[in-house]
Each structure stands twice: as structure tokens, then as C-alpha cells.
């Protein structure tokens, strides 16, 4: 577990350095993810241990959003006074975006591919 956490933090640090040095408009963790991905691609395999640890870490990813979400308190007044435009925008645009994305993939894939159960590696 400690190995995996150190690995993740080091790649995040690498990402942050990259972003600062090059002045990229992307957050450090996203660059860190890309760097780790390229490393894994070059090495060709991931240890069973790392994969297991990452799996259990990602399982609770929702938790990490809670502290920022409680920030709704600070904006309660604005959210209450503009609830209709906010609710309409959030609900319709989220599901419209979801539908458009899935439909485009479905239209571009060969027929029948949308019923494939998918491989499980």
C-alpha cells in the first residue's frame, strides 16, 4: 500500500513540476496521470499488487469530493435565488451531453458492437 501511495504522489509531484515549468493550462494531477500511463505503456505490465491497491483506492474516490461539496453552504443564497436556471442547466445539459456522447459512439461503431458484453481482462 505504501509503495503504491508513494508512486502516486511522486507522479503527481512530477505532473506539478511539468505544469509549472512549461506553464501548461492543465492541472498537475492530470499530467501526472499521463506520465504514469506512459510509464506503464513502456513497461508493458503492472504488478498485481499495484493493481489491487489502486482498485481499492479508486473504490472510495467519491469520498474525496465531499469536502468541496459541503461548500454549497457558502453559496446557498445564490443557489436558492437562481435555483431554476441552475437546476435546468445542470439536469438537461448533463443528460444531453451523456446522450450525445453515447449516440455518436454507437453510430460510428460497426453494427452489433453495442451489444457486445465486452472483454474482461
Amino acid at each position, binding site marked *: 500500500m505504501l509503495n503504491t*501511495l508513494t508512486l*502516486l504522489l511522486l507522479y503527481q509531484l512530477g505532473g506539478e513540476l511539468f505544469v509549472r515549468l512549461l506553464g501548461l*493550462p*492543465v*492541472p498537475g*494531477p*492530470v499530467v501526472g*496521470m*499521463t506520465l*504514469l*500511463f506512459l510509464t*506503464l*505503456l513502456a513497461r508493458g505490465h*503492472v504488478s498485481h499488487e*499495484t493493481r489491487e491497491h489502486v*482498485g481499492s*483506492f*479508486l*473504490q472510495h*474516490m*467519491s*469520498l*474525496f*469530493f*465531499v*469536502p*468541496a*461539496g*459541503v*461548500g454549497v*453552504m*457558502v*453559496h446557498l443564497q*445564490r443557489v436558492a435565488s*437562481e435555483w*431554476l*436556471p*441552475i437546476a*435546468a*442547466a*445542470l439536469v438537461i*445539459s*448533463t*443528460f*444531453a*451531453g*451523456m*446522450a*450525445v*456522447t*453515447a449516440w*455518436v*459512439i*454507437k453510430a*460510428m*461503431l460497426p453494427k452489433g*458492437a*453495442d*451489444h457486445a458484453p*465486452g472483454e474482461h481482462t
Partner: protein
Amino acid sequence: MKPMPPAELWTQLTASPLLGLSVTLLAYLAGVWLFKRSGQKPLCNPVLIAIVLLSLLLWATGTPYQRYFDGAQFIHFLLGPATVALAVPLHAYWRRLRQMALPLVVALFAGSATAAFSAMGLAWLFGASPETIFSLGPKSVTTPIAMGVAEQIGGIPSLTAVLVILTGILGAMGFPAFFRLLRIRNHAMQGFAVGLTAHGLGTARAFMVSEEMGAFSALGMGLNGVLTAVLLPLLLSLLIR
């Protein structure tokens, strides 16, 4: 040591990270318990429950959000390593992702534009204030990217963070029923669409369905994050000026 009056004890406890951390974990675990107990009812979303419980607690005790966040920021920080960790499932499904590269890229542009511009357009149509409209633009991408974009385009970063999380909860809650309605069963398609529109919260929920759906969701989330960070400020400056 003399016993302390409760009010003073509370002030002292909230000054250390321990309390913010513990209550966040407790509220989330309560949410997870309810979600499981209810047979995974969408309305019993663990994040939604945790946020409601914590907001009520802070409101009832008169604790300012900033003081709570001083402790809870250690949990917030883990969003960084979690984002990096997404490289592992991406790598595991790389061959399948590459086979679908062209449809995924086209869907990325179409879905990203739909999510961002329909949100701003609808908010404008319903008479939202300019700051709210611009805060809504990047609401489909993960928190750190969205906050940076909001700042660039004239939104309020902390409001964007809240809208991002509401979007994520909504997407995570709604996608199973929504795709049943659309008759889309393929886990790769569902995953990519969920990650693109509902970022990390959608991705976390997608991993509960299958690792394949999670991997495609992670890809959708990562790609839309980068695309939005680069293109949204550019497009808006062209459209408005």
C-alpha cells in the same frame, strides 16, 4: 485539569484537523451504509447524503465552512493521487480503447460541446446572472480543472466547485436508469459518456458496475478535462469579443 465548558471545548476541537476529518468520514460511511441498505437507490447517493449531513452539522453548530475545510482538506487533497491512479485502469483497457479511438474522439468533441454550451445557454435562457452562467461552463469536468477554467472565463471558482459536484452526483445517480431508457447496454459507451459528463463522481459509480466501464469513464473524464481546459476559454473569448 478542570472540566471545560462545552462551547469552549467545541471551539478548541474544531481548531484541529481531527474533527473535520472524522465527521467527513463518518458522514460518508453513513451515506454508504444507507446506499447499500436501500438496495442502491439512486436518491441515497452516498456523496449527497454526506454533504447534507455535514452541512446540517455545520449549520447547527454555527461552524464556518472555512474552519471545517481546514481539517477536511486532507481528504480533498486525495483527489490528486486518485486522478493519477486512473492511469492503471486506462492502461489495462488500452487495447480496447485504441480499437475505438476514432468514435471516441468524435464523441469527445460532440459531448463536451453539448455539455458546456447547453448548460450556459439554458442558464442564460432562464435568466441567470452572468457569473452563474460562466460558473456553469466547465461544470462537467473534474474539480481542479473546472475551478481554473471558471477563473479564466469570469465565473466564481468556489461556486463552480459546487456545481461540478452537483453535476457529478446527478450523473452518477441518473445514468443507470437513463441508459436503460436509451437502450444503450454497452459498458464501454456508457462509461465514456458518464466520465465525460460526470467526471470523477460518475467514474467512481462506473467502477461499481464493472472495471471496463470505470476505465472508459476515466478516459472520458481525463480527455474532457484537457479539452475543456484548452478550448473553452478560447472559444468563449472568440464568441464574446
